[in-house]
């Protein structure tokens, strides 16, 4: 009897390892392809030479080290963070059709970034301090989130929540457009480019912030996976099993806003990754266990976003498409499918 249960609980352990290794392989492949393809063809042997011998002097070396690697890394990290942010929000709202973009969190971040980039608030800074933009995006994301949460605590219906998020998105867009109308044309161009969303042009410091701040938040998120699982049963059950709900709510919001804000501040609003990736991960592993879903979403989010970035910049090269255009093509149908068969919940 005991043996049987042991088997039941861990029956998918082999499958688990298999899927994780497969996802890892895909991620490395996506990253590799992203780093080696582009307007300048760099053969695989040249690429490895550049990597392992640290050539930075040649043009090829410069392109690999200063452009392609940061870009590939940024898209992988960005995708991973957005996916985890989306997963956390889906558990938090116990609603499968929420994500940072849908809930107006990206719009909130956009609004705050527009304030920094387009008004006197940010003009005192020489260049644009990446910390400032990040901070603004985080505050914007957090602000929008707090509004959504305070409304969500009053209404239970998922659809209401969704519409609330959309409305907050519209409001933020409205304010942003007013700010744009008054802004100087030169600044607007930079902001518009940012708003289209792209993983290009990541510099060393920005990448470092992404890696360390995001990494910390990821670790925090993974540390929350036990209470996240309990939270799936509902707030009252979670509380009755020993979850400190107040602290948990704060941590989960901090984590998801931080991750979504971080990516949005550097890469602009990226649609649908946060919504669709957790779902695909859930389907692949056929579980709702967040101890598996968090690392799974990291790998899958990284892979998918990296591929989307590759498509965005190579489909109509040299014209680069906005990353959100590609992610929307991939994400929007998934949302429709989910709405049609609502039985796959969180």
């Amino acid at each position: 009897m005991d043996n049987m249960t042991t088997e039941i609980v861990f029956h998918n352990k082999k499958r688990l390892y298999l899927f994780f290794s497969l996802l890892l392989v895909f991620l490395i492949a996506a990253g590799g392809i992203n780093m080696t393809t582009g307007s300048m063809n760099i053969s695989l042997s040249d690429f490895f030479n550049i990597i392992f011998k640290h050539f930075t002097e040649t043009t090829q070396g410069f392109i690999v080290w200063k452009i392609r690697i940061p870009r590939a890394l940024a898209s992988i990290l960005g995708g991973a963070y957005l996916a985890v942010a989306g997963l956390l929000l889906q558990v938090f709202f116990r609603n499968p059709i929420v994500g940072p973009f849908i809930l107006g969190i990206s719009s909130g971040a956009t609004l705050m970034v527009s304030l920094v980039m387009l008004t006197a608030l940010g003009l005192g800074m020489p260049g644009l301090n990446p910390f400032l933009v990040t901070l603004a995006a985080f505050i914007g994301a957090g602000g929008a989130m707090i509004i959504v949460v305070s409304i969500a605590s009053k209404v239970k219906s998922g659809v209401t929540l969704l519409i609330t998020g959309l409305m907050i998105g519209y409001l933020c867009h409205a304010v942003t457009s007013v700010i744009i109308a008054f802004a100087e044309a030169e600044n607007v161009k930079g902001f518009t480019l940012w708003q289209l969303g792209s993983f290009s042009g990541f510099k060393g410091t920005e990448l470092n912030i992404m890696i360390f701040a995001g990494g910390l938040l990821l670790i925090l998120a993974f540390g929350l996976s036990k209470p996240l699982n309990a939270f799936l049963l509902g707030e009252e059950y979670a509380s009755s099993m020993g979850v400190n709900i107040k602290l948990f709510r704060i941590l989960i919001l901090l984590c998801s806003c931080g991750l979504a804000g971080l990516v949005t501040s550097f890469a602009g609003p990226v649609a649908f990754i946060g919504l669709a990736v957790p779902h695909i991960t859930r389907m692949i592993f056929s579980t709702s266990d967040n101890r598996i879903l968090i690392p799974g979403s990291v790998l899958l989010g990284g892979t998918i976003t990296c591929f989307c970035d590759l498509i965005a910049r190579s489909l109509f090269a040299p014209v680069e498409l906005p990353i959100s255009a590609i992610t929307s093509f991939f994400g929007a149908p998934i949302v429709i499918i989910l709405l049609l068969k609502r039985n796959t919940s969180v």
Partner: protein
Amino acid sequence: MKNTRPVLDIQNLSVGYKKIPVLNSVNLCFQKGVFVSLLGPNGAGKTTLLKTLAGLLTPISGIVLVNGKNIADYKRTELAGIIAVVLTEKVSPGLFSVVEFVAQGRYPHTDFFGRMQKKDLSVVSSALKMVNATELANRQLSNLSDGERQKVYLARALAQEPEVIILDEPTMHLDLKHRMDVMSILRKMCMEKGITIIASLHDVDIASKISDCVALVKNGAVTGIGPPEKILSGNTVAELYDFDDANFNPALGSIEFCGNGRRGKVFVAAGMGTGAVLYRLLVKKGFQIATGVLHTNDLDYYVAESLGADCVAQTPMEPVSEDLFNMAAALVKQADYIIDAGFPVGGQNQLNTELIAYALAQGKPVFTLRKAEDTQRFLKSDSENLIACQNEIQLLDKMNSHL
């Protein structure tokens, strides 16, 4: 019962939402291993009380002592090792197998990442076994029926290894079989594991048969508490739920519906259990019933009383007296129909056969469920005037067509 320290002790408690009290000055005490049912109408505050007991709501005033210590002084994980809950809402956690779901109950006992040790696994499997759900272990939670789900919820609570399980209407939405299953599982948890069960229930009849103690909740207060045998009289239950046309009978442990009696008066000559089903049928079809002469230890007597029938009764073991016969005869005279339920005739109710003869003499329509040879034996030539029926359904048909 030994006077040990209660698991839960409520002192002068007021509970409610947003500082608006629903229940006031509640004093209750729950001993280890007892089964307590909360009874009362919808909206009386049972759920609020239960949630406060579970520490999910903060009391407006007063205190809840858990093993002698104020519930507010417990850490959440500590409390989770003592009290588990099963709530009314359907849980839809997504893609969880039954065993994974039940394993969630180990939350207060597992490490930071919720990893399951050998002990946890054996607790989970014995919890599943206790609720007879071992064969469900590999199924997806979302594919279970309501009844199976409820058992799995019980297993999850059990896996928490609590001293108290608090349940909010555990039998809601369940069919009769699963209702009985759930109740007997709860009873078993109580008896075998010494777990204190506190449940709000709607079935007074089930509650009275299964609980050690019932608490009645109405109009913002706990109006009574004690063993069901002492607390649940017909009147208290009728008052608790504001019954207009129903009665609870503690001896039968069931609720009987009184009819409006618009279709006329029927006198049923019954006894020794021959009347019980017939009374219910007639009341259901809208007849007002009178019956007699019954002995007060007769099942028919209990049912007739609960149904609000005019009943002429004799103390047990005594033969039917002349006075009582005359009272019954008066009822026969008022009745539109007379029915002979086919009661066995013995020394003590011999006179009841005379009632039938009397009814015939009055020219009343008399129906009988008795076999022809028996009627001849008791009523001789009069038996030809009886309208013989083979069963209750035929009886109703014949009553309908008689006019």
